[in-house]
């Protein structure tokens, strides 16, 4: 097993791929979550009828496989709109919308879980809609939504492996390049898996930590 052709330079190459995976994930999850909060609040606030167009668009992003979204978005932006965009930008854009589509549902569910009576109590104290949203609804909805959101973030991190189709060399693509050269697929996939684990583990633990901290109330 230790008889391998893998060099330190190859490991560095994998680490760079992991860096790209982290970067794509961070950007997409951050922007996607912000957008998801906006979409989720809109969907909750305007009711199912007025939100129907938005719901439809989000449904598309949730139901079409990510691989297809990436290829089509790349072709559409490059060939139809003739925009010169890097694969990295396209990847972040598509993953952001993908995250936002799922996050909007998580946010809507979280808001719905806040009891109407609690919100009435806030409004009866003279608090505005905005103050009720920021001081009461968001903190309470966050507690409900956190486990699903952690799951989403971890899912997006792993799904980001698909961005190789728009020429972004992230962790899995880097691994495949090495496999082609070294012909040691199992060993390299183990290392690749270990990298994914190292990236996910802190996030999963952060979720556990926050949940424990919030159970006092």
């Amino acid at each position, binding site marked *: 097993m230790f008889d391998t052709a893998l060099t330190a330079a190859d490991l560095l190459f994998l680490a760079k791929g992991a860096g790209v995976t982290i970067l794509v994930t961070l950007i997409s999850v951050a922007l996607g979550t912000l957008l998801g909060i906006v979409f989720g609040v809109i969907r909750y606030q305007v009711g199912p009828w007025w939100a129907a167009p938005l719901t439809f668009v989000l449904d598309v992003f949730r139901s079409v496989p990510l691989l297809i979204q990436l290829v089509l978005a790349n072709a559409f932006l490059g060939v139809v709109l003739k925009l010169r965009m890097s694969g990295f930008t396209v990847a972040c854009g598509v993953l952001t919308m993908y995250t936002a589509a799922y996050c909007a549902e998580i946010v809507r569910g979280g808001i719905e879980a806040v*009891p109407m*009576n*609690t919100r*009435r*109590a*806030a*409004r*009866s*104290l*003279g*608090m*505005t809609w905005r*103050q009720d949203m920021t*001081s*009461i609804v968001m*903190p*309470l909805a966050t*507690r409900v939504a956190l486990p699903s959101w952690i799951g989403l973030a971890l899912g997006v991190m792993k799904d980001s492996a698909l961005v190789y189709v728009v020429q972004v060399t992230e962790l899995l693509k880097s691994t495949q390049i090495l496999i082609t050269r070294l012909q040691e697929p199992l060993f390299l996939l183990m290392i690749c898996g270990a990298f994914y684990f190292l990236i996910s583990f802190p996030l999963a633990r952060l979720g556990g930590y926050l949940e424990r901290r*919030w159970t*006092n*109330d």
Partner: protein
Amino acid sequence: MIEIENVRKSFGSLEVLKGIDLTVDKGEVLTVIGGSGSGKSTLLTCINGLEPINGGRIVVDGIEVHAKSTNLNKLRQKIGIVFQQFNAFPHLTVLENVTLAPRKVLGMSKAQAEEIAVRQLSHVGLGDKLGVYPTRMSGGQQQRMAIARALAMSPSYMLFDEVTSALDPMLVGEVLDTLRMLASEGMTMICVTHEMKFAREVSDRVAFFHKGVMAEIAPPAELFGAPKDPELQKFLAATH
């Protein structure tokens, strides 16, 4: 002064308030009694604009509650309301529950809001619970916290919507004592309640609601001593 003129309110095809006329003067304690579905709780949520009305008008200190131009958030600062469910903010400590609105709505500093909150919480007997989360407290304590939370906004009026109905019988007394204390301090109050003894003791006037109509209103001695309305006679016979 709260002036209620011919107020009508429907939920769908169900008319729950069928033209209510009522005036509550400053310093008065009015209790509202009546069976379930008589519209008494709905009236309270209409007074502070949490519910729209379908006819008539409600005027609080010269401001028409349901007029389009009325800033409800501003108006609600002077009308405190406490509900049947305690509606504590579960993610905040007792002290934070009470300081939230004074800080956000009135723009008080943290120190200023805490000074008022500590005073109000001590007033309702929760001076030793400041750092506790509401879910760790009994229903009676949570309800007293809700009263302190409303009082911290220095309201001119307090509305109480069956505040003891969700409480363990053992805990009703402590909340009623708090209401008695407020009444004795001259707070203008409208209390929707099923506690007849309480209504008899603290009220200046008692109103009896039946099927969306205010069937009778009189000082407690008169209303309980010599009820005129036949429905009220039945209601009192059933609750005594």
